[in-house]
């Protein structure tokens, strides 16, 4: 626990759409069990890829508009951004290896 990866609407542009590093955004909500169980996994990915990629969490309860903008229907949804554009996504809970495989593909 500990790292604060939370991001809201105000900082989304600066941190995600203007980022030079690849970014993963995890759309989640506090009552969504699969999202919560993914939390520690997301934090691990953030730690493992520090300096190479950025990882953020957007709480859809407070940021419904952002979720709508990116067409999030089901949470958890992970959206991968490269050069500010969404390039890949994962819908539903998955093991860490699935997340990092897609990230590695973006980094290579």
């Amino acid at each position, binding site marked *: 626990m500990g790292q604060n990866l939370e991001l809201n609407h105000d900082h989304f542009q600066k941190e995600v759409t203007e980022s030079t590093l690849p970014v993963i955004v995890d759309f989640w909500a506090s009552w969504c*069990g699969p999202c919560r169980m993914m939390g520690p996994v997301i934090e691990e990915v953030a730690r493992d890829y520090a300096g190479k990629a950025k990882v953020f969490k957007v709480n859809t309860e407070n940021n419904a508009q952002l979720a709508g903008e990116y067409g999030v229907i089901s949470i958890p949804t992970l959206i991968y951004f490269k050069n500010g554009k969404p390039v890949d996504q994962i819908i539903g809970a998955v093991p860490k290896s699935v997340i990092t495989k897609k990230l590695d593909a973006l980094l290579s």
Partner: protein
Amino acid sequence: MAKEVDVLILGGGPAGLTAGIYASRARLNTGLIENVVPGGQVAKTELIENYPGFDEGILGADLMERMLKQATRFGLQIHSEQVTGLDWKGAVKKIETDQDTYLAKAVIVATGSDSKQLNVPGEKEFKGNGVSTCATCDGPTSANMDVVVVGGGSSGVQESLFLTRFVRSIKLVEFMDRMNAEKILQDKARANPKFSFFLGHEVLSINGDSKIRSVTVRDRKTGEKKDLGAERVFVWIGMVPNTGFLKGHVRLSPAGYIITDEDLRTSVSGVFAAGDVREKGIRQISTAVGDGTIAAQSALHYIESFS
């Protein structure tokens, strides 16, 4: 190098985590393989009202987070990996995953079950895009929508009641002439104006273009077909056991559940089963937790009988 453990648990739902608590607290070197993330079916549901000890109910996510913390506190090692191969013929049980090989003195299978599918046109196409089996995942983004829920059992009605916080209307479709849900749940649903009921109806297809527009159902008595307008479809029509990977390794019932004795031994000596994955009458968190306890004790006795 293969990893040697005393007990290897497959599945990180309530049954597997409870077995993990007991086995690791008994100082057995214990590993748990979970193919997605720990939590199981419980994590998907919002409020659990019938698990003792939580007088005001507890969120499924909170309960599972706590079980996970409790299990890892005693040293349970959790590995998010896919089982790719089994060799259970010898005294030492071999389990291969996409990342490692494990050699275990005893194995506890607690892989639970997954939601059954309708198998109608449109279901696959709209999976993750409007067809769902998880209310807490897809409810909040269904604000002010008309939705169809398929299944009038306790799960279907309970999850529908949670959905009423977000959606505009729920058309509940049930194959049988009456709902099977617990009475307390049925009463709540009938009192809620957001519900309408289509009993004795079967789903024929889920229709739409870039998103879902309607669900076609048929009245099983009259044969009359109707299109129910809906943007989301939630399916709770029962479960199928996660035992596909066990075929030929351990004795299963015709429906695919693992057959056990009272001590939760399976047909393979040294392999135990716990929770929803085994053939039994009542599948609840409390019974899964009870199973996890018994399976861990049985595994402990089994290991002690050698050394």
